């Protein structure tokens, strides 16, 4: 009803007040026009002591905060002063404490009373965390890394190294390679290889080999941490106080540790659907790479690069794979390229169900122990609803792989206790260009950063440079511009710089020139593989010398190709420089050195001959 004001969120305000008191050495609740508040601020300034003042007259909920302070301190007025968490009082009380020396005692001279146990504690032993820890240790600092994997709903866990090593880039690329080898075997006959055997794929052998390799990497990381004298705890870390964390190991044993500086590098975990049965019956990428049985007929829910890469290699290994997509493919990526990626997958055995979401999961057949031994998973019936009407679909699958996104592991590590702000919508941590959070002694790197790329090399670079800035006297910041990436779908997609849509928004279509070309890899000609499917384009800024601001390629070895061009783009690559560069023949990459046709011209880019 009109005229009703919003009731204050007392719990939230109390927490906010307590957090402010805990996170600042000197905390002054003040009002901007209050002369006594100014006197008190002057006192601290004269002592060269930093204070934090919250002006209640210009703060939202200022009056309510004042009410909370009454509850906490029995003091109705401002200034209301706290030093190192202890309530002093108003202006008179503060001056009194200064005169009798108790204020100085509370301030503890120049240092906080106890020295910290460590120079640096890093929460998270993944790509970012490990790189930062080793760099800091190399610069002579006392460093601790905590890494702890909360098991997945079905019990999967893994060792030191983070997502990339255990359930990300490494096993993904190896399984992608396994699938490519299958394709190569098919091509081989056209190249004259003759063999009688029917070639089939054994999932268990592949998983064992990949897991063995990962095991050696886990051990390698442990050894390298030890060699660099970094203390490693396989424990779950969470903040309990400013500068202090609680570490809980698998057996529930708790230890406490303090440090001058902290780095958050906790990474992300897959998101579930939020429908009944999703956690019990479905798997995610966290489970897929060590699945001890072949997944069989699989439904992949999602259109992220994780979804498409997994669907891609599973189909390549001969499995019956369907991808269920709610709206678009590869959100955030160049959409023309994303659609081409999807189209290739579709012509190569991956089924797509577009504009549907699963709503009901129903277990049809539980996997008995005997069946698991024979490598047969259970059967799950999935009921899906259209996002575009009322159509319902029903189908049974052996495995449902959920790949709809990943959530940052920032909700349960005590950040609110020490006042570190996170983006409530996605759990990610906003930082400045030095990876510092809103709390000066807490930094963050890697996938949990708000608005930054979720890539291993980015995390590693950020981690290393951060350590160098903190302890090595460097001022170099991490450069997030023009970071190259590759999606390892069956037909790989590499890119560096702007997606076309974003370039158009940023620069205006009339200021851009897009050159493009279809191409046919030489190796595909003999086996008669897809012609006019591989595609490359560059986006040039006409107002800046035709500077290449976006480069995209869909074709084999896209990652290897894109890496070199990323360096060129960093050097300010222009169309002219590309034209002056002589291509290596016969390769796919050379397509970038001979691009003549612009999108604007409307000319046909279909390849006819060599």
């Amino acid at each position, binding site marked *: 009803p009109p005229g009703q004001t919003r009731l204050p969120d007392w719990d939230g305000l109390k927490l906010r007040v307590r957090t402010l008191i805990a996170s600042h050495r000197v905390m002054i609740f003040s009002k901007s026009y209050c002369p006594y508040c100014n006197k008190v601020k002057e006192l601290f300034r004269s002592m060269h002591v930093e204070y934090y003042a919250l002006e209640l007259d210009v703060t939202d909920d200022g009056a309510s905060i004042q009410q909370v302070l009454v509850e906490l301190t029995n003091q109705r007025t401002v200034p209301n002063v706290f030093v190192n968490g202890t309530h002093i009082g108003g202006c008179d009380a503060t001056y009194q404490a200064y005169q009798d020396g108790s204020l100085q005692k509370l301030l503890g001279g120049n240092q906080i009373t106890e020295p910290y146990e460590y120079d640096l504690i890093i929460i998270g032993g993944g790509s970012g965390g490990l790189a930062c820890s080793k760099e800091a240790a190399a610069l002579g600092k006392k460093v601790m890394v905590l890494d702890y994997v909360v098991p997945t709903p079905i019990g999967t*866990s893994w060792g030191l190294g983070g997502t990339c090593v255990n359930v990300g880039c490494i096993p993904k690329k190896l399984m992608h390679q396994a699938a490519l080898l299958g394709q190569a075997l098919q091509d081989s006959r056209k190249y004259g290889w003759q063999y009688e055997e029917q070639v089939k794929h054994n999932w268990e052998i592949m998983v064992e080999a990949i*897991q*063995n390799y*990962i095991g050696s990497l886990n*051990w390698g990381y*442990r050894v390298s941490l030890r060699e660099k004298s970094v203390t490693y705890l396989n424990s779950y870390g969470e903040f309990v106080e400013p500068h202090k964390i609680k570490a809980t190991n698998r057996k529930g044993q708790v230890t406490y540790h303090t440090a001058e500086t902290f780095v958050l590098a906790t990474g992300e975990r897959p998101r579930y659907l939020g429908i009944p049965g999703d956690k019990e019956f479905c798997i995610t990428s966290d489970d897929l790479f060590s699945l001890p049985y072949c997944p069989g007929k699989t439904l992949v829910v999602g259109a992220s690069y994780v979804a498409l890469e997994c669907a891609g290699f599973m189909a390549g290994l001969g499995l019956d794979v369907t991808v269920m997509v709610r709206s678009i493919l590869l959100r955030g990526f160049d959409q023309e390229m994303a659609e081409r990626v999807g189209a290739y997958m579709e012509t190569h055995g991956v089924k797509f169900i577009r504009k549907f979401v699963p709503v009901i999961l129903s277990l049809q057949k539980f996997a008995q122990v005997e069946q698991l031994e024979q490598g047969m998973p259970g059967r799950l019936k999935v009921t899906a609803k259209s996002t575009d009407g009322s159509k319902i679909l029903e189908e049974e699958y052996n495995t449902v792989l959920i790949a709809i996104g990943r959530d940052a592991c920032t909700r349960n590590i005590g950040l609110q206790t020490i006042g570190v702000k996170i983006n409530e919508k996605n759990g990610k941590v906003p930082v400045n260009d030095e990876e510092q959070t809103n709390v000066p002694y807490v930094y963050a790197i890697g996938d949990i950063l708000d608005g930054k790329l979720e890539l291993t090399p980015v995390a590693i670079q950020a981690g290393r440079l951060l350590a160098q800035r903190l302890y090595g006297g460097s001022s170099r910041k991490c450069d997030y511009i023009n970071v190259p990436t590759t999606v390892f779908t069956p037909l790989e997609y590499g890119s560096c710089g702007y997606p076309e849509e974003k370039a158009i928004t940023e620069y205006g279509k009339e200021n851009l020139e897009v050159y493009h070309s279809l191409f046919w890899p030489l190796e595909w000609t003999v086996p008669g593989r897809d012609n006019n499917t591989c595609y490359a384009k560059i986006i040039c800024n006409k107002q800046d010398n035709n500077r290449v601001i976006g480069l995209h390629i869909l074709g084999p070895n896209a990652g290897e190709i894109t890496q070199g061009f990323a360096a060129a783009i960093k050097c300010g690559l222009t169309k002219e420089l590309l034209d002056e560069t002589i291509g290596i023949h016969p390769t796919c990459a050379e397509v970038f050195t001979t691009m003549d046709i612009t999108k604007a011209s409307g000319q046909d880019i279909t390849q006819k001959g060599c």
Partner: protein
Amino acid sequence: MAQRLALQRLLALPTRGPLASHGRAFGTSAGRRNTFNVQDGSDFQDRVVNSPKPVVVDFHAQWCGPCKILGPRLEKLVSKLEGKVLMAKVDIDDHTDLAIEYEVSAVPTVLAMKNGDVVDKFVGIKDEDQLEAFLKKLIGA
């Protein structure tokens, strides 16, 4: 490498691969008495450090291919010595503290221990002749 808790409980069967528990490679009955899997730090203290007889310690890992060849090979030779030398097997993922204490960086790493001291060591796979020489040196000197 990944561990799957629920499935391990479900299967409770020794299988090859990620779910394997390495303790199966016990060798022949003669070898059984002379070869054992270290259970924990105090077991190591009792049966290796405080052992009256010299002990060969085989640090291995489930994910290590060469370890799977070296282990049985070494066990066979130890059993031929009829109790003059004992063999202790340590899975470095299960007993990481021990592995770190003895500075194991790569596997297989084999230590020769006498009266609690490390008197000899090698890393990587060795053939039977090399292993025999290694064992002979341990009992000889």
